[in-house]
């Protein structure tokens, strides 16, 4: 049996919306194994993005436990969380590229933060962009790239520091269907050929079916699970 890299125990998250507490997550229990391709499916407001943010160490839970590679994330301070995030690849719905940087510079950025030298990260950025099929567009800025291309850059960037797993928040939510299909092929290839663990949040049933396992969320809880 494969190693468990993410484990949540009774995970809870309550936001304050003004003075009203909103329970975004109420008792989520989830285990993700290394090499898995998991999709989290649910309507908006079901808490799936909140869950993803917690797993991505972008936010702190208000209750329960979250273990990433057996480390209890809730015990970590800001610095340790930042170090943890360096080993997690994030892909956002709105790409979140730095507009003033070229594709290559964007892919280099996480490696620069990690302290890699210019030569090393330049070479790796080129390899990654080649892998996502953007070898010829690496010196273009995000505004000169299509949505699909921008998301490929974002995927390359997410892979830059050899992450333990990839978190994708509606990765095709802002891309036309043809490009969305191609992005999904790339993601599947990463999972199948490179063994990258992937957790993808979506509200699109057909997209979720591309993953090998799907958990269904509703009102801050996992209500069912299907294996595709």
């Amino acid at each position, binding site marked *: 049996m494969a190693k468990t890299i993410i484990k949540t125990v009774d995970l809870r998250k309550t936001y304050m919306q003004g003075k009203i507490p909103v329970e975004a997550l109420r008792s989520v229990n989830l285990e993700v194994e290394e090499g898995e391709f998991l999709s989290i499916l649910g309507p908006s407001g079901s808490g799936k993005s909140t869950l993803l943010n917690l797993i991505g160490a972008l936010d702190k839970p208000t209750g329960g436990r979250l273990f990433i590679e057996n480390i209890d994330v809730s015990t970590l301070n800001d610095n340790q969380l930042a170090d943890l*995030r360096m080993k997690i690849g994030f892909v956002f719905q709105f790409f979140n590229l730095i507009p003033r940087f070229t594709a290559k510079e964007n892919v280099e950025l996480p490696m620069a*933060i990690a302290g890699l030298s210019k030569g090393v990260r330049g070479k790796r950025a080129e390899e990654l962009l080649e892998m996502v099929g953007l070898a010829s567009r690496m010196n273009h800025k995000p505004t000169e790239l299509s949505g699909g291309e921008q998301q490929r850059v974002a995927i390359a960037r997410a892979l830059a520091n050899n992450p333990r797993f990839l978190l994708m928040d509606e990765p095709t939510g802002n891309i036309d269907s043809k490009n969305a299909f191609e992005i999904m092929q790339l993601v599947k290839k990463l999972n199948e050929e490179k063994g990258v663990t992937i957790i993808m949040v979506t509200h699109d049933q057909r997209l979720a079916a591309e993953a090998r396992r799907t958990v269904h969320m509703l009102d801050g809880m996992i209500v069912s699970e299907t294996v595709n």
Partner: protein
Amino acid sequence: MRIIDMFSYAFSAIRLRKLRAGLTTLGVVIGIAAIVALLSITQGLQTAISSQLQRGFATDTLIVSAGGGLGGGNEFNLLVKDAQTIRELENVTASIAVIQRICYVKSSGLTRRVTVIGVDFVAYRDIYSSTFVAEDGEIPLNPEEDAVIVGKQVSDPWNNGTLFCTTGDTLEIIWTNTTARPLRNETYTGRVVAVLREVGGFTVGGPSDSRVYIPISKAQSFFGTETCELIIVKLKSDDKAMIDSTAKAIREALGSGVTVTSSTAVLNIISNVFSTIELFLAGIAAISLLVAGIGIMNIMIVSVMERTREIGILKALGMKNRQVLLIFLCEAAIIGFLGTLIGIGAGWSLAQIVVRIFGSSSGAGGLRQAGQAVVSNGTTITPVLTPTVILGAIVFGLAVTMLFALYPAWIAAKLKPVEALRYE
């Protein structure tokens, strides 16, 4: 993250907002330029005045005057014959009395108001051998009673070759006797025997371009006085201990009513005054730099807000709070450093321009006449930019920008990644 990568990241952010960064930098430029210009002009002025003073006021001389300070006080009378008493003291090589009165001098129908100095020509020349020098005519060894020596500016007041009087001319000297009742004008006709070479600057006791010199005996009889305003004492050397002991001896010989001033003391006073002025001006200039600092803070807070999402991305990619803080400080450092460098250049140029404008106006007759104490045409002020000022400006400029950037940078560093990423 490597420091070079931080700077390059910060630089790319600055380049994105060229106009805004430029205006922010301008604030620093103005502040630093004001400080540098004011300091280099004051220091230049101080250097010029000090050198003038040293020329007109030899370091091995003492000035003895009645009462508190130079020429002040009136309870104690300094007598001409006191010079003789001082001459007998140890270490004194010469001692001469100086009588000075405001008079009118009349030549070919024109009248000018001048300070007339009664002094022993030869002894005076011995003390001020480099400045009491005739340009035209000769300083007589055995002057006639009616001999008159005039300063360069008295001879050529308009500085254009049109002479008020020159060697060989007769000069009517008019003095209003204020002790006589009713008041009356005393008059005698003198003969110009020499015109002094231009001295420049101003002086205490020493020769000046704007004065008229007559023999001490004539001054005594004409002004009807036994008192004098100053006694100039020349010592064997300018040794500090000798100056102090002689000054003490003079006070003991003449009584406590005298003031003995050494040139070093005057130089010290001037240097103190200038330090105060410098501090005051630098303080005013520093305020403009503080204003620039507030501008930087303001702009950076706006910039942090605008770039909230970017900060969120950086944090999602693993950047630590400390690194975010450093990136914003790097931005401030680049602006501060650039602004300071340009500011030093601008301040230096400004100082040159100001000095040139000031220099040309001081050449005009009006100003020259008005001021014995004002630096005249003979003196050119050269702005002085010392390494201390340059270094100080850089340190101060950087410190102010970084200090004011600290708060915005801290705001950026403290942003929560999830909230920052959600920011539209």
